[in-house]
C-alpha cells in the first residue's frame, strides 16, 4: 500500500512538471496550430541560466539567503527565457506565419538544434551540479511515504501557476484577445486585436513557464546539461496530445496522467505482465496508454482547442 502511495507521489511530482511544460506546447498550438519543438530547449536554457546566475550570486552576494538567491536566479532565468521566447517567435516563426504548416515545423526543429549547440558551446558537454538551495532531505508524510521540500514546492508552484494561467486566459483582456486570436486570426485582427502582439505574448508566457519548469527540474534532480530539455520536452508534448492539444485543462490533466502512468507503469509493469515485460519498457508503457486513449478519443482526453469549446 505504501509502495503504491509512494508511486502516486512520484507520479504527481513528475506529472506536474510535465503539465507545466505541456502548457507551453498547448498554448502555442491553440493559437498558431504550430508545434514548437524548441520548447524543451527553452527549459534547458532556463535551468542553465539559473545555474549560472545562482553561481554568480553565491560568489558576489554570499550574504543573500538560500531562498532569495534561488528566487533571484529564477527571476533572471525567467526574464532571459521570455526574451528568448520572443526572439524565437520573431525570427523563426513570424515570417512563416502564412507559409505551409511544415515550414515552421522545420524551423522549430532548427531552433531546437541551435539552442542545444549554443548551450553546448557555452556550458560544455559535461553534466553540471545544480546548487541545492532548497532542502532535498526526505520528509515522511505518511509512514513509509517520503516527499522532499523541493517536491512539495514543485507541486505548489505548478498548481499556482496553472490556476494563474487559467485566470489569465479566461478573465483578463489579454486572455480574451488570446482566445479570439485562437478562434480566428483574421476576424480577431478585424476586431482590433493586434494578433502579432498576442502571439508574441503567448510565446513569452510559455517560455516563462518553461524556465520555471527547468529550474524545478534541475532542483529536483540536482543536475543540468545542454541536452536535458529533449526528453521532458518530448514527454510534455505527449502529455499535451494525451490531454487534447490546444486545451489548457487538457495539458494539465495529460501531464498528471502521464506522470502517474509512467511511475505506476514503471513500478508494476512486471507484475501486471506476469514478468514478461520489465522496467526497461517504462517509456513504451506510457506510449501504449497514449495510443489506446487516442484510438478511443482521437482528440485527446478533453478534446482539442480551448477556443472552440470556451
Amino acid at each position, binding site marked *: 500500500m505504501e*509502495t503504491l502511495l*509512494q*508511486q502516486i507521489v*512520484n507520479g504527481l511530482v513528475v506529472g506536474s512538471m510535465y503539465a507545466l511544460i505541456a502548457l507551453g506546447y498547448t498554448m502555442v498550438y491553440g493559437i498558431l496550430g504550430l508545434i514548437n519543438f524548441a520548447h524543451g530547449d527553452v527549459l534547458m536554457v532556463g535551468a542553465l541560466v539559473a545555474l549560472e546566475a545562482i553561481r554568480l550570486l553565491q560568489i558576489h552576494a554570499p550574504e543573500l539567503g538560500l531562498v532569495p538567491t534561488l528566487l533571484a536566479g529564477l527571476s533572471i532565468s525567467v526574464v532571459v527565457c521570455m526574451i528568448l521566447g520572443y526572439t524565437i517567435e520573431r525570427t523563426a516563426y513570424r515570417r512563416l506565419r502564412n507559409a505551409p504548416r511544415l515550414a515552421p515545423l522545420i524551423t522549430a526543429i532548427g531552433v531546437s538544434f541551435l539552442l542545444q549547440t549554443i548551450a553546448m558551446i557555452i556550458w560544455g558537454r559535461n*553534466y553540471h551540479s545544480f546548487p541545492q538551495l532548497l532542502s532535498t532531505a526526505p520528509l515522511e508524510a505518511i509512514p513509509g511515504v517520503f516527499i522532499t521540500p523541493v517536491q512539495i514546492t514543485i507541486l505548489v508552484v505548478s498548481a499556482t501557476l496553472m490556476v494563474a494561467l487559467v485566470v489569465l486566459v479566461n478573465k483578463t483582456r489579454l486572455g480574451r484577445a488570446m482566445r479570439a486570436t485562437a478562434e480566428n486570426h483574421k476576424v480577431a485582427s478585424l476586431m482590433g486585436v493586434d494578433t502579432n502582439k498576442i502571439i508574441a505574448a503567448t510565446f513569452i508566457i510559455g517560455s516563462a513557464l518553461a524556465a520555471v519548469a527547468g529550474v524545478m527540474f534541475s532542483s529536483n534532480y540536482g*543536475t543540468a546539461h545542454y541536452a536535458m530539455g529533449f526528453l521532458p520536452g518530448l514527454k510534455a508534448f505527449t502529455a499535451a496530445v494525451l490531454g487534447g492539444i490546444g486545451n489548457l485543462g487538457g495539458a494539465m490533466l495529460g501531464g498528471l496522467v502521464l506522470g502517474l502512468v509512467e*511511475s505506476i507503469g514503471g513500478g508494476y509493469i512486471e507484475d501486471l505482465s506476469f514478468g514478461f515485460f520489465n*522496467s*526497461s519498457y517504462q517509456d513504451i508503457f506510457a506510449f501504449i496508454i497514449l495510443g489506446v486513449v487516442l484510438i478511443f478519443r482521437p482528440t485527446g482526453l478533453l478534446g482539442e482547442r480551448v477556443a472552440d469549446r470556451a
Partner: protein
Amino acid sequence: MKQRALILALAGLTMTASTAAMADVVVKLGFAGPLTGPVSHLGKDEQYGAQLALDDANGKGLVLGGQKVRFELLAEDDQADPRTATTVAQRLVDAGVKGVVGHVTSGAAIPASRIYEQAGVPSITPSATSPKLTQQKFKTTYRVIANDLQQGAAMARFATEALKAKRIAVIDDRTAYGQGLADALVDNLKRLGVAPVGREFTNDKATDFSAILTRLKATKPDAIFYGGMDAQGAPLLRQMKQLGIEARFLSGDGVCTTEMIKLAGPAIGADVFCTQAGIPMDKMPAGKSFNERFLKRFSVPVQLYAPYSYDAASALVEAMKLADSADPARYLPQLQKVSFKGVTGNVAFDASGDIREGGVALYQYQSGKWQLRP
C-alpha cells in the same frame, strides 16, 4: 654497452648457425605504447616494466630447445592513437618479434590486436581494460589486468563477504558497459548463493529513477548496485536518499570518478562503494621489492602499470619455457597453461585470454574522495 651486447649476440647467432656451438640466441619481443604525448609517462612506465622482466629472464640464463637465449625489447611509440597503433604493430611484426607486450590503451590495443592475430604473434596488454578486446575471440590476444566485467565479480564478493549484504538489488542502464557489468555481478552473486532481490532497468539519458527505486524499496534491499555512468549514478543516488532508502550504493568504475562526487552533492557518503580494474602497487604481493628494483634499474619510481607489464612479459617468457621454444606457433598454445606467481598476483588465463584472478581495487567514499579499501 647495449650495442656491444647486440653485436656479441649477433656474433653468437652467426656462430650457432655456422658451427652449431652453444651460444646465445637473441629473441626479440615488442613493446608498444604511447612514448610521446600526454600519457607518455604511462607508456614509458610499462616499457620499463617489460624491460625489467626481460632483464630478469636474461639473468637466469634461459635455455630453449637446447640453446641459450637472450631477450631483447623493441619499443615502439603508438601515441595512444588507433591509427598509429596499427602502423606500429605492423612494424613490430615485420621486425620479426616473437611476442608483444602492449598496447597500453584500449583504443590502440583493439585495432592493433587484429594485426598480431593475422601474423600469429601473441600480444599481452598490461592495461587496456575494455571487454571488447578479448571479445574479438582472437587466439593471440591476452590481458594481465582485470577487464571491466571482472569488476562485477569483485563487487559480488565484496558485497556478500565484507558488507554481508544479503538483499542486493541491481539496476543497469542497458548500455554494453552497464549491462555487462550488472550481468557479471548477478552471475557472480548467484554463484555465491545470493539471488538479487530485484532487477530494474533505465537508460543512459534518464533523470528520473523514482519509479524503479520505489519498486526496489519494497524488496527491502540492503545494497543497490548500479551498472552505468556517473551522470545517471549521481541523480539515482540522490533519489535513493529522497525516497528514504537506506541501502548501500555500489557501482563500477563509471561511477568511481570525481564527477560523481561533484554531482551527487550531499547525497554521497560512506555507504557508497565503487570498483576499478587493477590494484595499487602497495597492495600487490611483491609490490614493495618490485618498486625498489625498478627504482634502482631506471632511477624513476613506478608510475602505475609497470608491475602489470612486468607480468605480461613474464607470461610470454613462461609460455616459451613450457613450449621449450620461442616460436610463436609453438608457444602460443602454452599461454593457456601458464600459471605463476607474478608481481601483481597469480597469472593464469581463461579461454578468452583474460586473466583468471584479475585484481580489482575497491574504493569507498570518505571525506571528499574515494578511499582505497584494504
